[in-house]
């Protein structure tokens, strides 16, 4: 490996997420818990990665969605060529696919930042061989940590830092719960987008420009979601819809699902356990491709 000079915007030992300067041999950032290998990868690539943050409440399906997305990218889906940087980038998709193959949902993502999985990928369009590679950083964060950060900002510096440096965001919402009439997903999304509004704000009164893909997950429960996600959102997530209309320039709505059929088992203690009988990913790539397109257009 040739010796590279460090770009001015990157410094060895400086956390890529919170900018805190750590010891040269630190494995995780002492301030936010993000892995220091991220900055090393960025320095090696001589460019800062474009961060796309996956946001969503606990149990909405962020880990499964991201795992499938990364796996599909690895298989060059959507005409995209993607290369994982470091073995750690493969951990998430491997875990998700392994669990789903065994007809189980992957374990809950821990609240502790140093236990999150981070994916660092080099991506370019397969056909455009002369197109420059760009780097993507996709962290899988815990929904509860995000909820706490929304309630009390700066609780999780990793989230604060991630959002402040994100070029775009994927906001996952439980379409099944929304379709059942519960206002909870709408309220959570409203709070979340209010928080994101502050993070992406570019000036007083100005609407945020960062592309945000609102992904209506578990849409297999409510197939009408696939027909017209925008109408679905306007109907069932009206508060969110209105806020997006007022405060964000670049929002699009998508429907997605990963599970083809769901079964239910009962444990010895009487707990009902949902079991994915087979995977049928649908609408996974589209939100990502849309965001990518928006980012590249800028």
């Amino acid at each position, binding site marked *: 490996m040739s010796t590279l000079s460090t770009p001015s915007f990157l410094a060895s030992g400086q956390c890529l997420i919170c900018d805190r300067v750590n010891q*040269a041999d630190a*494995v*995780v950032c002492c301030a936010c818990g993000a892995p220091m290998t991220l900055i090393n990868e960025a320095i090696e690539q001589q460019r800062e990665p474009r961060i796309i943050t996956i946001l969503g*409440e606990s149990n909405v399906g962020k880990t499964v969605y991201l795992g499938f997305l990364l796996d599909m990218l690895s298989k060059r889906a959507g005409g995209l060529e993607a290369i994982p940087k470091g073995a750690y980038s493969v951990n998430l998709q491997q875990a998700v696919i392994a669990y789903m193959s065994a007809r189980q949902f992957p374990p809950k993502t821990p609240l502790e930042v140093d236990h999150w999985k981070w994916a660092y990928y080099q991506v370019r369009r397969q056909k455009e061989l002369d197109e420059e590679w760009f780097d993507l950083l996709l962290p899988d964060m*815990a929904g509860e940590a995000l909820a*706490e950060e929304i*309630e009390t900002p700066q*609780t999780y510096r990793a989230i604060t830092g991630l959002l402040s440096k994100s070029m775009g965001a994927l906001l996952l919402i439980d379409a099944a719960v929304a379709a059942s009439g519960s206002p909870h997903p709408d309220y959570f999304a409203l709070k979340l987008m209010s928080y994101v509004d502050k993070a992406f704000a570019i000036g007083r009164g100005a609407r945020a420009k960062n592309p945000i893909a609102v992904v209506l997950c578990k849409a297999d429960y409510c197939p009408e979601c696939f027909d017209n996600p925008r109408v679905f959102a306007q109907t069932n997530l009206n508060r969110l819809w209105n806020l997006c209309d007022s405060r964000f320039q670049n929002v699009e709505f998508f429907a997605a699902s990963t599970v083809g059929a769901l079964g239910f088992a009962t444990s010895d203690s009487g*707990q009902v356990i949902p079991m994915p009988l087979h995977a049928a990913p649908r609408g996974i790539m589209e939100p990502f491709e849309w965001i990518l397109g928006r980012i590249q257009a800028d």
Partner: protein
Amino acid sequence: MDSGSNSGRLNAVASRRADGAKVVGIDQAIFTCIRTPMGQGYRVVAASRGLRAKESSEIVTHAPSGDGLCDEGPEPVGISFFPLQSGRFCILHSRYAGAEPTGRGGQRAYTRAFVLDAEQLARFGNSPFQVLRAAYAAGTLVADLKPPTTLPTVDLLPQPPQIAMRLAEAVHEPGTVWLCHLMDKLLAGDTLIVTADINLPRLADALLAAIPAPLRTTISFSAGVRFSVGRTYRLSVLSGSTEPIERLLRGQPACVLDLTQAEPLHTELTHAWAIAANRLLQTGRAVELAAFTAHRFSAADAHAVEAVGRAILVCEDARTCDTTGLIRTVVARLQGKANGPLDAELTEELVQLATGRLTEAIPQARRPVLDEAWQTLCTLRHTSPRIERFKDETIRSIVLRTSEAAPMEAIAMASQAVRAGLEIIRSSEWAALEATLSERAGKWLAAANAETLPWARQVLQGWLVHAINERNMAEILKCVDERVEQEETAPTPPES
């Protein structure tokens, strides 16, 4: 936080139950994963009104989530203690409460948080474990998966700490060497991560018990909770291998120790308190150490823990050193400035110890030990009123003890002391001593051997110069003169 209430009402320091017992009303909260109308996932699901929003956030970042305990036992428990930014303190008691509710495997962590201010914590000897024992006694540590959103403050009754028992247990597990080594590191300011295959909370409890109570609030810790870089404690007690933790902590100042090893790599202790504690524990005096940590060490001594440790060691060494060394030790202590009330108290104890030992040892000592020790004492220079008082009291005590068996010897020693520079300032105490010497000298004279009379006269004449009650001494001297004269004029028995 689901309760959302933030009235800021402070708890009363203490109130009385119906039976008259003085209880402490403490804020509490529950952090776990349940589904409620307000949401799902791990969060603070219930809290008392006095809990502030920021405090709630700190509970979220410190409490373990699913499978977050590292104890492999049948009923694992995790305990954490840390200061809050509000100035209060938080104690977390974590356990498992059934399976993770969304069916994704693993166990559901359930944490009961207790938030209390410094004054309230002091009621429990600054020991989070005492708080939890009181909570257990109050039935508050039971997992409640359908709690009301707003909890009442919990009334806890402080119980006797039983520090000595905890220290005695720690002598067996993890053992005195490890216990003092960990204490040494903590007191030196190190961040300590300890892996062990013993009862983790009990180890943390014993460590805190060996540290003076006022300092316990500075030792944030977790025991039995899975390690996370985001949760920074002064002390983390875990099970499992040290390797992953060492990897995570690379580049950060922390000391990782594995208690499954027979003993530490480097056993030399550096902090005086740890050395003193080690001495007391090695000699089977856990009760004494407990008395220091639980009662004798006050908040006013908090800045001088190392000085107090040194004072304890000095007192310990003084028990076995020779008489001359003992005098020098006392003088050295008296010349220094006291570093707090306990340091001063220990110096006073040393003085009492020295006076007692010298009083017993010197009258019975054989020359030249007697000469050396006595000379050292008599020739002490009065560099401070404390040394002057020590010298005065010790000499009087020795002279008095000597006079029980040899009153003339005692008077001679008193004269010697004065000639060496002792200033008789406390005349009332010396007057009382002189009266006793006179009485005993009189009794001695009645049975004295004629051959010793000239010497006795010499001694009394020597003391008369300094006597406080000259008439008393003059009368005894007169008696001696009369007896000497009698002996001289007595007819010589004929030779047979």
